[in-house]
C-alpha cells in the first residue's frame, strides 16, 4: 500500500498546474482519492470532521443494490434457460447465463457514463463525482435484459449529459439521471422497452408456451370475459412469485424481496429517507384500495397489496424515489412527495391503457414537482415564523 502511495506522490506533479497532464487532473485525483482518503486538513469552520464522505454514502447505495443485482443476474439466466427449454439447467448455469446477459449492460453503462463524467470533470475542472457510481449501476438494473448495448450507451449518455451535467453535475440535477435515461429509451426506442422484451433470447428459439409477459402486461391484456380473480386463481398472477421475483421483467427490479433487503441496508445506515419509502407505500395502498372499490377494469380489481410487488414499484420506492438530490428536501415535503408517487403509480396503471407500468413516469413527474412542494412547505414555515413575531 505504501508503494502505491509513494507512486502517487511521485507522479502527482505531472497533474498539477504546469504539469504535462494537468488537463486530466480530476481523473488522477479521483484514482488517488479512491485508493486513499485525501490528506487535507481543516482550514476554516470546525476543526474536526466526521469520517463520512460522499464516497461512503454512494458506495452504501451500491451495496444496497447488490441483492437486486445478484438476483437479477440469476433471474435473467433462469428466464433464458426456461424460455429455451433447458429445464435441467442448474443454479450455476443460470448464474453463468445471467452474467453473460447482464454484465455487458453494466460494463457499457459504467464505461460510457464514466467517459462523460470524466470528460465534463476535466473540461469544467470539478472533481469527478461519485454520483455516477450509483446512476451507472441503477440504470442497467431497470432495463430489460434484451436491451441492445448501443441503446444502453445512448441512454446513459442522455441521462448523464442532459439529465445531470448540463445542470452542473451531481447535486444540481432536477431529475434522477438513471430514470431519465430509461425514460429516454422508453420513448425513443419503444420497441426495445415494451412488449415481449423481458426474456433474453436468441432469435426465435423461444419455446412457444412462454410469452415473456410481465404480470402487469398480462393484466392489461386480459382476454374479454376473464376477470382479475380468474387470472389469480389460474396462477397467471402469483403473489409469491412476484414477491420473490421469479418472473420476467427488468434486470434488477423483479424481486421485491431483494429490494426489501436493499431497503433495510439503506434505512439501517440512514442513507435513504424512511419518510419517502413509507409514504410511497401508503400512497399506493390508499389509492389502490380506492380504485378497488370504485373501479371495474382488471387492473382496478387487482387487490391493493399485489401492487406492492408488481412491476418496478418496490425498486422505484426504495432506490429511485429516495434519491436525495431529486426528491423533496423538507420533511413534510417528503411525505407529500412519496404519497403522490404511490398515488400516481396506481393512476397510471389503472387509468392509462397505454402504459401498464407507471413507476418510472410517476417518479420523474414527482421529481419535477419536488421543488414546488418544498417551496410550499418553506413558505408555510416562514408564514408561521412571522405569525409568532
Amino acid at each position, binding site marked *: 500500500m505504501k508503494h502505491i502511495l509513494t507512486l502517487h506522490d511521485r507522479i502527482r506533479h505531472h497533474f498539477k498546474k504546469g504539469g504535462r497532464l494537468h488537463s486530466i487532473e480530476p481523473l488522477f485525483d479521483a484514482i488517488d482519492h479512491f485508493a486513499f*482518503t485525501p*490528506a487535507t486538513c481543516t482550514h*476554516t469552520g*470546525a*476543526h474536526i470532521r466526521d469520517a463520512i464522505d460522499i464516497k*461512503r454514502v454512494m458506495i452504501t447505495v451500491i451495496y444496497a443494490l447488490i441483492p437486486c443485482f445478484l438476483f437479477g443476474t440469476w433471474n435473467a439466466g433462469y428466464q433464458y434457460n426456461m424460455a429455451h427449454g433447458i429445464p435441467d439447467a442448474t443454479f450455476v448455469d443460470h448464474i453463468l447465463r445471467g452474467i453473460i446477459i447482464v454484465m455487458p449492460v453494466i460494463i457499457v453503462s459504467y464505461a460510457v457514463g464514466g467517459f462523460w463524467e470524466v470528460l465534463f470533470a476535466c473540461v469544467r475542472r470539478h472533481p469527478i463525482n461519485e454520483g455516477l457510481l450509483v446512476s451507472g449501476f441503477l440504470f442497467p438494473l431497470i432495463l430489460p435484459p434484451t436491451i441492445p448495448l448501443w441503446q444502453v450507451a445512448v441512454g446513459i449518455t442522455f441521462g448523464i449529459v442532459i439529465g445531470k451535467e448540463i445542470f452542473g453535475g*451531481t447535486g444540481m440535477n432536477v431529475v434522477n439521471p438513471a430514470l431519465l435515461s430509461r425514460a429516454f429509451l422508453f420513448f425513443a426506442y419503444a420497441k426495445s422497452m415494451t412488449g415481449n422484451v423481458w426474456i433474453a433470447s436468441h432469435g426465435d428459439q423461444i419455446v412457444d408456451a412462454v410469452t415473456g409477459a410481465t404480470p402487469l402486461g398480462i393484466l392489461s391484456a386480459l382476454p374479454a370475459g376473464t376477470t382479475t380473480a380468474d387470472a389469480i386463481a389460474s396462477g397467471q398472477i402469483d403473489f409469491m412469485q412476484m414477491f420473490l421475483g421469479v418472473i420476467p421483467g427488468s434486470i434488477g427490479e423483479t424481486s421485491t424481496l431483494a429490494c426489501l433487503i436493499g431497503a433495510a441496508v439503506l434505512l439501517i445506515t*440512514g442513507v435513504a429517507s424512511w419518510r419517502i419509502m413509507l409514504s410511497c407505500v401508503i400512497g399506493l395502498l390508499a389509492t389502490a384500495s380506492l380504485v378497488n372499490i370504485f373501479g371495474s377494469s382488471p387492473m382496478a380489481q387487482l387487490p391493493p397489496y399485489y401492487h406492492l410487488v408488481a412491476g418496478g414499484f418496490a425498486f422505484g420506492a426504495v432506490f429511485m424515489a429516495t434519491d436525495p438530490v431529486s426528491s423533496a428536501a423538507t*420533511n413534510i415535503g417528503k411525505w407529500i412527495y412519496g404519497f403522490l408517487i404511490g398515488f400516481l403509480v396506481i393512476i397510471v396503471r389503472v387509468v392509462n391503457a397505454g402504459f401498464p407500468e407507471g413507476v418510472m413516469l410517476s417518479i420523474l413527474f414527482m421529481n419535477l414537482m419536488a421543488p414546488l412542494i418544498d417551496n410550499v412547505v418553506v413558505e408555510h414555515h416562514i408564514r408561521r415564523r412571522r405569525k409568532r413575531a
Partner: protein
Amino acid sequence: MTLHISLKQMGRDCGMEFKITKGFDVALEGKPSDTITDLPSCKTVALYPLEFTGVRQRLLVEEGDQVTHGQALLENKTATAFKLRAPAGGTITEIRRGERRFVDRILIDVDDGAEAERFDRYTPEAIQKADRQAILDQLVRTGYLSFIRKRPFSHRADPEVRPKSIFVNAMNTAPYEPDAERVVADDPQAFQAGLDLLTRLTDGAVNLCIGDNAGDTLTTAERVAVSRFTGPHPAGNTSVHIAHVDPMKPTDVVWTVKAVDLVLLGRLFLDGTLPTSRIISVAGPGVRPDARHYYRLRLGGDLTPLLKTALEPGTMRLVNGNVLSGEAIPQDSFLKLHQSALTVLEEDGERHFLGWTMPGLDQMSFSRLFASSWLRPNRRWKLGTNTHGEERAMVLTGYYDRVVPLNIMVDYLVRAVLAGDTDEAIALGILETDPEDFALCDVICPSKVDVQNIIRDGLRQIEEEGI
C-alpha cells in the same frame, strides 16, 4: 400574554427545565480534570486589539513607553470613551502591525511593582443598587463591555440600547470549554456581583442557563431566572437557550455573556482595578493526559512555558476555545482577554486506504455508516484536523436538521445565503442564530461544506445591507 408572563414568573421562581434531543456530543479525547494549577507569573503579557471587533484603532502609546496596569493603550476613534487597556504594568516592547496596518499585538514587559489604574469600586450591596449608566460607563471605559455581546450578530453590546433580556451561559457542551461551575466556584462572590450588575442593565430578566451537572454556586445564584438544559451539544449554546426561554422577535435585542467571563466583570467592580488573572481549561487529545486540567494564568500571559511542557509530541493545532467553533492560534501565543479555553489537537494528514469501504472501527462518525457507530458507541476519539474527504455538492437533505435544535430549516437557510437572498435568510430566522450553532453541521456534513462560514458570511452581508 398573561399566560406568557405567568410562565416567565414561574420560571424565575422555581427554575425551568428544557430537554434538548437533537444534537450530537463529539466524544473527543482529552477532557480536562477538575484541578486548578497556578502558573508562575509571566514576564511578558500581550494585548490583541483585533479581539475587539468593530474598533477603529487610535494608538495612544509608543514602543518603549512605561504604562501602568490598566492604562489605555488604544481607543476607538468613532467612540473615544471605549479604551483597550494594558493587562499589566510595565514597558511596551513591541507594537506589531498586521494586515492593513492594524495593530494586532502589543507586548508589555511586566513590572510587578507598577501602579494600577483605579476605577470605581463597589461593595456587593452597592452593585445591586448601582446606576445603570455608571455601570455602562465603567464597562465602556475599561473595554470590558466587549465581554457582553448582543444578538443579533453577536457583536459587542451597544450601551445605547436597552436589551429585552440578558442570557448568561453557564453551561457549555462543546469540547472543550471550561466547566462553568468549576470556574465560578473559585470566586463565587465575583460571579454573584457580575450577575447583580447585569440585572441593573436590563428591565427584563437575567436568565442564567445551567446544565444538568451544575453545582451549588450556579444553582443558588440569586436575583436571576435559572433555566436548566439537558441534552447533547448544542444544548449549551446561547441561541438554543434564547429560543427556548424567551424567543426573539426580529426587532428584539438580547445581550449575552458567558458565566466564566462574568467573574472578571464582577472582580472589576468589586476591586476597582482590572483583574490580573483568569482560569482557563487546557484540554484535547494534543495535550498530555497529566496536563489536561484548569490553569490560573495572568491575563494576556505568555502561553509558551505551559505549551512547552503540556503538549504531546507532533505537529499540533492550538485552538482558542473549543474545536467546533474556536479559532486556530499560532504556537507563540499569549492568552487573549476573551479566551477561556485552549484545546489542542493533532494536524492529521494521514491517508486511509480505501476509506470509502473499510469497516471503519477506528473512525468517528455521527452517521451509522461505520462499524464504530455500532460497536464502539461510547468510545472517546483521538481526533485530528483531517477532513476525511473532499468537498462535494450538498447531496443529503435534512441531515443538518438533526443537529440543530432550533426552529430553523438549515438546508434552506444555507441555500438562501449562498444565493445571496438576504430577505429569505432573515425570513428563515438567520438573525436568531450565531455561526457556532452550525458548527456540528460542519462536522457531520458528508459533502464537507463549511456551514458556519456560510452563515457568518450571510450575517455579515445582512449587516452591511442593513435590516
